[in-house]
């Protein structure tokens, strides 16, 4: 453009407002307002048809009914476990992409991690079901190889849910890890090696401290995605999955108990907030640094 954009302060402010408007509209209209409404809903109790009072009854139900908080805890523990497993699986992949493979090979490996996401999550998970169900491909293969006498049901186990969750989350861990490992100067690794360190010590004292923001960012994203995942635990875990998002779904859709569902939703939000805060505290990272990596 030959002329400078806007020069007067008010022009610049207007421009800024216009540029931010779509994002702000989206944020306020689709996230903040519904959440405020749900928050109000969660503090309401129906005492008679069309008659409501403000109360903590919904939250009380959660704590008094063991199934609810058992599922809640189970979801938290499994999400943390899935996050840890994802980190373990993603770290070597990210290392190879960032440090070992060169040029085209590195790009190719990245695409391999990305390919599963070209298919919708539903189709992908249904694919897993075809592979894992009793009459599916993998049990048949196990029988064929003589490892099991009868086809075994590989679906509806906790391990199956974990495998599915790790698979779904892998990319979101690999991306921040690759970013933070790529920025690690190779000469630091060589210097540590030169000063007498072995692989383990180099990983512990050089690589992990450098990659900490990336690791934390990946863990936060994966943990949030896993905690809020509905499809994978439901399809792969069936009735046994006992995932908290299912409880929320049940309250809203099956029971038509929006008040209870809203309360559960906020409990889940509180859980993920607390876990993220804990993760940042433990790893000694600052939220702003981590989010720049994510």
């Amino acid at each position, binding site marked *: 453009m030959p002329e400078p954009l806007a020069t007067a302060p008010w022009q610049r402010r207007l421009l800024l407002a216009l540029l931010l408007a779509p994002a702000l509209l989206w944020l306020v209209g689709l996230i903040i307002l519904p959440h405020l409404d749900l928050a109000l809903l969660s503090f309401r109790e129906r005492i008679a048809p069309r008659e409501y009072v403000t109360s903590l009854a919904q939250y009380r139900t959660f704590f008094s009914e063991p199934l609810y908080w058992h599922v809640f805890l189970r979801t938290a523990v499994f999400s943390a476990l899935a996050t840890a497993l994802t980190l373990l699986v993603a770290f070597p992949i990210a290392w190879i992409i960032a440090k070992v493979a060169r040029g085209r090979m590195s790009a190719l490996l990245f695409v391999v991690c990305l390919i599963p996401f070209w298919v919708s999550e539903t189709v992908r998970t249904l694919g897993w079901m075809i592979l894992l169900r009793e009459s599916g491909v993998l049990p048949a293969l196990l029988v064929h190889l003589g490892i099991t006498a009868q086809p075994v049901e590989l679906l509806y186990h906790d391990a199956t849910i974990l495998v599915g969750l790790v698979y779904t989350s892998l990319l979101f861990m690999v991306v921040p890890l690759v970013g933070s490992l790529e920025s690690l100067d190779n000469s630091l690794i060589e210097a*540590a090696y030169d*000063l007498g360190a072995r692989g383990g010590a180099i990983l512990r004292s050089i690589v992990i401290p450098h990659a900490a923001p990336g690791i934390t960012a990946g863990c936060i994203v994966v943990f949030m995605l896993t905690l809020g995942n509905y499809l994978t635990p439901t399809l792969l875990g069936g009735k046994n999955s006992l995932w908290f998002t299912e409880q929320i779904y049940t309250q809203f859709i099956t029971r038509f108990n929006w008040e209870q569902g809203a309360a559960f939703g906020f409990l889940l939000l509180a859980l993920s907030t607390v876990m993220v805060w804990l993760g940042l505290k433990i790893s000694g990272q600052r939220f702003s640094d981590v989010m720049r990596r994510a």
Partner: protein
Amino acid sequence: MSTPGAATPVTTPDLEVRGLLKRFAAHLAVVDLSFSVARGSFFSILGPSGCGKTTLLRMIAGFIQPDGGEISIGGRSMAGVGPNRRPVNMVFQHLALFPMMSVAQNVAFGLARRGVGRAERLRRAEAMLERVGLAGAGGKRTEELSGGQRQRVAIARSMVLEPTLLLLDEPLGALDLKLREHMKLELKQLQSSFGTTFVYITHDQSEALVLSDHVGVMNHGRFEQLGTPQQLYYAPATSFVAGFVGANNRIAGKARSISAALVELVTAEGWAVHARAHGSIAPGASVEAFIRPEGMTLGRTTAQLPPDQPAHEGEVLSLLFDGANSVVLLREARSRLELRIALPQTGAYADLKVGAHICFSFDPQRAICFSAPDTHA
């Protein structure tokens, strides 16, 4: 270990390289290289970028495996010994200080890997920092330090492990000019105070000349010459060394006649000069002569020149005044060749103007004539 004052000096050199070879695909990076470095000396490997000096250094450090030959450090063969188990430490080009650690942790890192206790290694790190003039800086972060201080931390981090050999990979390259001059002196002082053998690689000939006891000038994976800085400067063995070490004027042409080891060289334009022959030169062969800027005498007229030297004439192209290092660039009348001549420090030519006519001469004994290399640069 030999006892000092022994009758025969049979001390094993700290570094001995024999027939070293390294190939990258079809390219020979290091070709059949043999040399040794005496204990406690400062050895530099000087060469243009891509000459194989970094490859050589990385083979000594153990990061690259040679394709042939042998490296012995302190009399022990290094075949199959990893970088973490060699009695060698390296100061990296960009220093590679660990940004996630404090200065003291950086220095104590190698000690920790050797299993030295926490209190002991912090004490030794602090003592080492004091030796390099950074007492009390242990608690600082590495990015709080100046370029020169970071350099000293990098050296302290290596020296605390008491290596047989310290390798330095152009550590001054990233510093600005003024600091580089200062660090040159500091490096030299540190080396003599530690008494450790330093192997230093650089493409900067002034660094190599100032710092080293011995210099290997490297080109295309080979040593062109190995000698003291004075030998390299005053008695270059090849035309590459003559052109690479120190400022030099290169005059290329054909040898017309040779008498009493003096070559009469004639350029394509017909300008004739005399120079001392290096090795045997046949009449008619392509040759190149080198004469240092300070080896030439200026005169406003031929009468001002030493009477026993052949006089030449030229025109002043530009004057580069730099105090004691001032030079005049002139164009020789016959060959149109650009020559660099040191201005005498008497100030006698302070009024010299660009475009002025000037005479010059040199003692043919101070000019060296080599057979021209087959491959023309």
